[in-house]
């Protein structure tokens, strides 16, 4: 923008002159001198200027309506409908308007007839191409002076301020004002400009206080014929700023239409002139062509529209003007390109395009602006290619750069809301806003679904500055290619070559080639300044918008250019911050980062910055490349060799602050260890340099642990170079006794992608967590010292270690995740505790005896106490106790135990009767004789499971009671307390099933009466248990018990309830300890008055082979019962006895029915069921039916050799007859 004349690029605001309020220095605009000012109309006002605070405040408020410093957009510069923004220009009392018409030629027409023939007698504006004095005479199109004239010198409105005072009552003051006003108006009229005029009378008293003012005002009004509404204003004294502001508003509001009218009049005048055909009547060779005149009119109309802030109208006129310039008979096509007029037209055209963009941005047409920008660039390129010297020149690159920069500058001036800071916006809009920050949304009317070239979304300034930078860079590139013969100043070059230059180079707004790339360094055009300005501005803009990477990129680009032209130290200044902050390092954009490093390294080498050179070499190796000059040299050779600094250079890096070609990783092999024990750790250093680079030799590696242990591994060249990729160095022998410091030596020359794994053993004196604190790689020689320290454990942690397995290195994953830490536990207790005599299975009621043994393996004697604790899911408490008398509450003091001595203690556990599981904890707490205050604890935990050894079943059956029955008719002896009920005999069979895993011996079984109902008695017959019996697993044993029940009263016919338990005494096989288990028999309910039938084997006559069966029918009830008895015939035997008969039984009586059975010899095989040698079974069937109740009575076995089978009924064992 700076390349163009100021008035062209200035924003057009209506010019208002303020007369009589003093002058203010205007630093914003450089006055553009209009030639021959003296010939203009001079306006002189005799009245004194208004003075005092009031005038100053008024001026301030008026200047508040000045829009020249505001942003160029419709919000900041309200359009014609809102309050206009003006260009307020306070002038003194006297000023000169430029001449409206050029002065007539100084020579008299008669003196030079030839000239006068060519001249029209009509006078033109001094800036018109028709006026000989004009800078564009005779065929120029336009001059910035014309714009300047309207911006600076010819006001649309002149406001004159006069003060009147009530003190001064003389009419002379009044008259003076009247004279002045009239003089100004006359002068304005004489000047030919249609400047509007208004006068403001400042009074020090209001009309209310001094009514005579009214008359004075009306006198002035009458004398000047000024309209009270739009011409003459009265300003009473005002106290507050707000009042003054309101007054200024009320002053300017009615004047605004006048101002607009002024410019509209000018437009109208212009349009008329254009319609008339301009000045085409002129003849002559070098006159402006018709299209030229049209351009002139369009431009003027455009400018006037801009003054009126009608930007859309202005844009239309400018676009038309551009079309006219480019049209086939337009100036750009018709004028020869060597002519200065062609360049002038180009400049005008640029300005028109610029103003078009400005108008579009003013109205917020961002897409339109982008499109115009792109189109105009293409148009100019085409024009230059066709008519100029082509677009492959530094001149065109310069133009492109300028054109992009213009867009950036326009965007800055326009301050589009979309690109403004987001801080003010509501959060709800922020999503869209973030989107907007890079580029503006499409204009209204273009839907997002339509195809649009992406570039047509207007991007923010930095992008345009970037484009400008790129073009400027291209320009520099072309400038550097200028051949030497063109670089000599024209004064020292042959004329022919100078003439050639104009055909070769486009020097539109750029210096000649000899200045573009001069021989002398300090002269000519400074490309770097331009590049730096553009790049830094772009970088700043990118940074503001959070685009740090783009900012760094453009800085890097700039540094490249600066370095190319030899500004190494300047390039370093640009690059160093980029290098420090670059995200490329951490994000591993290696190619991008290495390009930065190369440049930095190059610069550091040139300015001999040893530290930087060292650091960049180190980082370059890390990204897999190396400085080109390094070649095959080793790192320390390269850095040390070419160093000129006298003193030793030391650099220190930390973590990822710089990349390192050698990484270090560390792991403890075990998760925890104990005080005094050795723990292995592995330290790995690995080289990541590229394959073609030389090896790197580390001077030493230092590792610090939080236990203030330091490990230093120093380099020591081994006899033969190590060539394997991975080498495990076993440094365990070097483990020194001194805990705090470990110094070992190893070969630390690392070829590319080699790694060294140092296996070390450490021991720690104190318990706690030991962490890796830092690891430091040191490369050092006489000239430099590089230390790269890692303190971030995450960077050094590794999940695996290497182990040597069959002479092959294998990777072993570690089971713990935090491998850079090890937990050091306190010393372990060295007491051996064991329980002896522990069996696999224990059974209910058993008394478990255990033996605890303590072996003191400590090196000294101890004082120990053993404590017992039982826990488990039992309902009953398990009784556990020490056998020893000294025990109290489960604790047993074991006393002093000497070293290597064992002590035993007995332990008894009473197993509960129910099956259960419980845990016995035995805590041995002891103190060492040397350290009685520290208690050590050893715990032994045993789980015991108690199961039931056997299960009993119970089978109840009736037996025949041989004794007599009590008589119903006998009163009995009252003195005899013996029970008098019917005695009934019963048999209880108890099959015992072993569920124990071991064999057990049943020592004894007996039946015990737990309780008998009060109205009954129960007598157990003699002990039935014969002999001890071994019951192995899952075996069963049967024992029968007999007992007799008797009701106490004969009248009591209820059942007798008896509760019994089976007491089993058993022991483990081979163990004498007896265990007594009491098994409760389910409650027995024994009927005492039910009729029953019992079968016994009677004592038959011995001589025969007959068998006698006695059937005893019992009726213990109080009823007279009749039974039908039927003996079924059988093939197995013949019988003697009643086949069928009815029997009646009196109450409380019994009856024996005898049958004699003769067994047949031949018997079915199936009947032979008895065991060998015992005979066989026969199955006589006697049915006894209660004839009254029709109830079949079951026949019970009443004695031995008779059994009741579920299926076949009663069976009788027949021994061999």
């Amino acid at each position: 923008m700076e390349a163009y004349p100021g008035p062209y690029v200035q924003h057009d605001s209506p010019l208002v002159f303020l007369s009589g309020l003093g002058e203010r220095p205007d630093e914003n605009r450089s006055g553009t001198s209009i030639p021959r000012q003296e010939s203009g109309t001079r306006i002189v006002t005799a009245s004194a200027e208004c003075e005092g605070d009031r005038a100053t405040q008024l001026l301030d408020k008026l200047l508040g309506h000045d829009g020249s410093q505001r942003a160029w957009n419709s919000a900041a510069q309200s359009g014609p409908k809102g309050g206009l923004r003006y260009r307020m220009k306070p002038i003194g009392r006297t000023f000169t308007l430029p001449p409206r018409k050029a002065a007539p030629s100084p020579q008299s027409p008669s003196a030079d007839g030839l000239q006068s023939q060519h001249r029209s007698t009509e006078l033109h504006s001094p800036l018109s191409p028709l006026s000989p004095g004009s800078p564009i005479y005779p065929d120029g199109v336009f001059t910035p002076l014309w714009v300047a004239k309207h911006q600076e010198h010819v006001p649309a409105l002149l406001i004159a301020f006069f003060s009147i005072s009530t003190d001064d009552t003389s009419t002379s003051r009044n008259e003076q004002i009247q004279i002045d006003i009239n003089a100004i108006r006359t002068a304005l009229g004489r000047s030919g400009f249609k400047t509007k005029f208004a006068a403001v009378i400042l009074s020090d008293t209001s009309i209310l206080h001094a009514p005579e003012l009214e008359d004075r005002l009306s006198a002035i009004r009458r004398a000047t014929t000024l309209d009270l509404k739009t011409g003459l204003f009265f300003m009473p004294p005002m106290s507050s700023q707000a009042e003054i502001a309101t007054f200024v508003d009320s002053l300017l509001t009615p004047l605004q239409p006048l101002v607009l009218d002024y410019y509209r009049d000018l437009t109208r005048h212009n349009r008329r002139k254009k319609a008339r055909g301009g000045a085409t009547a002129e003849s002559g060779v070098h006159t402006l062509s018709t299209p030229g005149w049209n351009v002139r009119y369009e431009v003027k109309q455009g400018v006037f529209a801009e003054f009126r802030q009608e930007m859309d109208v202005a844009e239309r006129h400018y676009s038309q003007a551009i079309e006219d310039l480019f049209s086939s008979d337009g100036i750009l096509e018709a004028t020869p390109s060597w002519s200065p007029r062609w360049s002038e037209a180009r400049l005008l055209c640029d300005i028109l395009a610029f103003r078009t963009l400005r108008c579009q941005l003013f109205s917020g047409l961002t897409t339109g602006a982008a499109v115009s920008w792109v189109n105009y660039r293409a148009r100019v390129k085409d024009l230059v290619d066709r008519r100029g010297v082509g677009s492959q020149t530094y001149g065109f690159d310069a133009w492109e750069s300028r054109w992009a920069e213009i867009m950036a500058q326009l965007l800055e001036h326009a301050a589009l809301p979309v690109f403004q800071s987001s801080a003010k916006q509501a959060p709800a809009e922020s999503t869209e806003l973030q989107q907007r920050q890079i580029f503006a949304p499409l204009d209204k009317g273009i839907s997002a679904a339509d195809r649009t070239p992406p570039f047509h979304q207007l991007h923010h300034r930095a992008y345009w500055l970037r484009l400008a930078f790129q073009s400027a860079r291209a320009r520099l590139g072309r400038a550097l290619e200028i051949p030497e013969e063109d670089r000599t100043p024209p004064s020292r070059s042959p004329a022919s070559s100078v003439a050639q230059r104009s055909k070769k180079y486009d020097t539109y707004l750029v210096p000649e080639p000899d200045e573009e790339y001069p021989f002398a360094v300090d002269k000519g055009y400074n490309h770097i300044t331009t590049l730096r300005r553009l790049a830094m501005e772009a970088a700043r803009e990118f940074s503001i918008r959070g685009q740090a990477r783009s900012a760094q990129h453009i800085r890097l680009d700039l540094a490249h250019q600066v370095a190319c032209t030899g500004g190494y130290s300047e390039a370093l200044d640009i690059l160093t911050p980029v290098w420090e902050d670059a995200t490329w390092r951490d994000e591993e954009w290696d190619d991008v980062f290495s390009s930065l490093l190369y440049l930095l390294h190059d610069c550091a080498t040139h300015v001999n910055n040893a530290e930087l050179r060292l650091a960049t070499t180190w980082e370059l190796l890390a990204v897999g490349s190396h400085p080109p000059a390094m070649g095959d040299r080793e790192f320390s050779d390269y850095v040390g060799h070419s160093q000129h600094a006298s003193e030793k250079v030391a650099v220190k890096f930390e973590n990822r602050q710089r990349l390192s070609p050698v990484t270090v990783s560390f792991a403890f092999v075990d998760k925890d260890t104990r005080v005094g024990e050795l723990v292995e750790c592995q330290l790995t250093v690995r080289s990541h340099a590229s394959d073609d680079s030389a090896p790197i030799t580390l001077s030493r590696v230092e590792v610090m642990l939080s236990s203030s242990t330091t490990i230093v591994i120093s380099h020591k060249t081994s006899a033969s170079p190590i060539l394997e990729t991975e080498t495990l160095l076993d440094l365990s022998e070097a483990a020194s006794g001194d805990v705090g410091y470990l110094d070992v030596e190893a070969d630390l020359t690392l070829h590319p992608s080699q790694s060294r794994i140092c296996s070390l053993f450490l021991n720690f004196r104190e318990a706690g967590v030991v962490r890796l604190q830092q690891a430091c790689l040191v490369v050092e020689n006489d000239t430099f010292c590089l230390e790269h320290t890692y303190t971030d454990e995450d960077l050094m942690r590794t999940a695996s270690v290497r182990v040597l397995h069959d002479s092959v290195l294998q990777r072993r994953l570690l089971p713990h995740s935090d491998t850079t830490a090890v937990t050091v536990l306190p010393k372990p207790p060295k007491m051996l505790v064991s329980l002896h005599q522990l069996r696999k299975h224990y059974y209910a009621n058993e008394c478990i005896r255990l033996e605890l043994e303590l072996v003191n393996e400590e090196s000294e004697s101890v004082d120990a106490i053993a404590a017992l604790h039982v826990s488990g899911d039992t309902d009953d408490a398990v009784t556990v106790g020490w056998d020893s008398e000294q025990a109290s509450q489960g604790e047993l003091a074991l006393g002093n135990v000497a070293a290597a001595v064992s002590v035993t203690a007995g332990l008894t556990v009473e197993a509960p009767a129910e099956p259960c599981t419980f845990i016995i904890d035995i805590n041995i707490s002891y103190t060492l004789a040397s350290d009685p205050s520290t208690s050590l604890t050893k715990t032994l935990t045993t789980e015991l499971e108690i199961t039931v050894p056997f299960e009993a079943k119970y089978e109840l059956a009736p037996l025949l009671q041989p004794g007599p029955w009590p008589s119903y008719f006998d009163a009995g002896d009252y003195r005899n307390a013996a029970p008098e009920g019917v005695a009934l005999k019963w048999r209880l069979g108890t099959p015992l099933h072993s569920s124990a895993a071991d064999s057990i011996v049943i020592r004894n079984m007996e039946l015990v009466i737990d309780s008998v109902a009060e109205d009954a008695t129960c007598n157990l017959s003699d002990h039935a248990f014969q002999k001890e019996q071994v019951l192995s697993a899952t075996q069963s044993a049967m024992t029968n018990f007999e007992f007799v029940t008797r009701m106490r009263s004969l009248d009591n016919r209820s059942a007798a309830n008896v509760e019994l338990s089976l007491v089993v005494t058993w022991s483990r096989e081979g163990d004498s300890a007896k265990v007594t288990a009491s098994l409760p028999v389910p409650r027995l309910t024994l009927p005492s008055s039910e009729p029953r039938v019992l079968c016994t084997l009677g004592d038959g006559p011995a001589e025969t082979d007959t068998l006698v069966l006695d059937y005893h029918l019992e009726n213990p009830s109080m009823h007279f019962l009749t039974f039908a008895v039927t003996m079924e015939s059988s093939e197995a035997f013949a019988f003697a006895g009643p086949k069928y008969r009815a029997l009646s039984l009196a109450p409380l009586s019994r009856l024996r029915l005898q049958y004699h059975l003769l067994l047949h010899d031949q018997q079915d095989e199936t009947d032979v069921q008895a065991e060998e040698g015992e005979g066989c079974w026969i199955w006589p069937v006697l049915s006894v039916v209660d004839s009254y109740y029709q109830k079949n009575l079951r026949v019970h076995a009443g004695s031995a050799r008779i059994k009741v089978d579920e299926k076949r009924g009663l069976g009788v064992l027949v021994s061999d007859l």
Partner: protein
Amino acid sequence: MEARSPSIAAIGVIGRHNNPLHISLFDATGPGYEHARDKLEYSFMLNSCLDIFEARMPNKTIGHDFGLLHALDERIAMYGWLLNTGVKLVIVVDMEGRPALSPEAGKTAILGLRNSDLTPAFQALQTAYISLLRNPFYVPDDHDPRATKGGASLQIASPRFIKEVERVGKAWYPGTTAI
């Protein structure tokens, strides 16, 4: 001048921690456009997209289509997608990348693009990346600078994936519905 139509100039796959996983370049074709694309220049371009991803990410709650990231000049524009795993796909479009095969195609260079034009290409890339993840020999942690702590190259080396990216880059044209 011969009519040109847009083509893909480069495809960048960028990891969760903003590290480059893969970059494919596609040279422009046709007379006057012979010069090869500069790898470093495109690395810079793709890198600069990360700024925009970062700026938009906090406000982007749904969807993965970041649309137009930015346009550097009339020719080069960048579009982006963000995958669920934080991997970013960037497609650099050259608006004059190839000669227009038909007059219809020639119009697109002038008319431009809409965001949905890139969707098939992004979908194809996403599919390719997903099938890469399904490859048991591809361990995503090996390509994560935080997990590997420097040293080994983080670039994707799977030939199938690279081939697929190449195919997508060549096959795409504006208005295509599936690749």
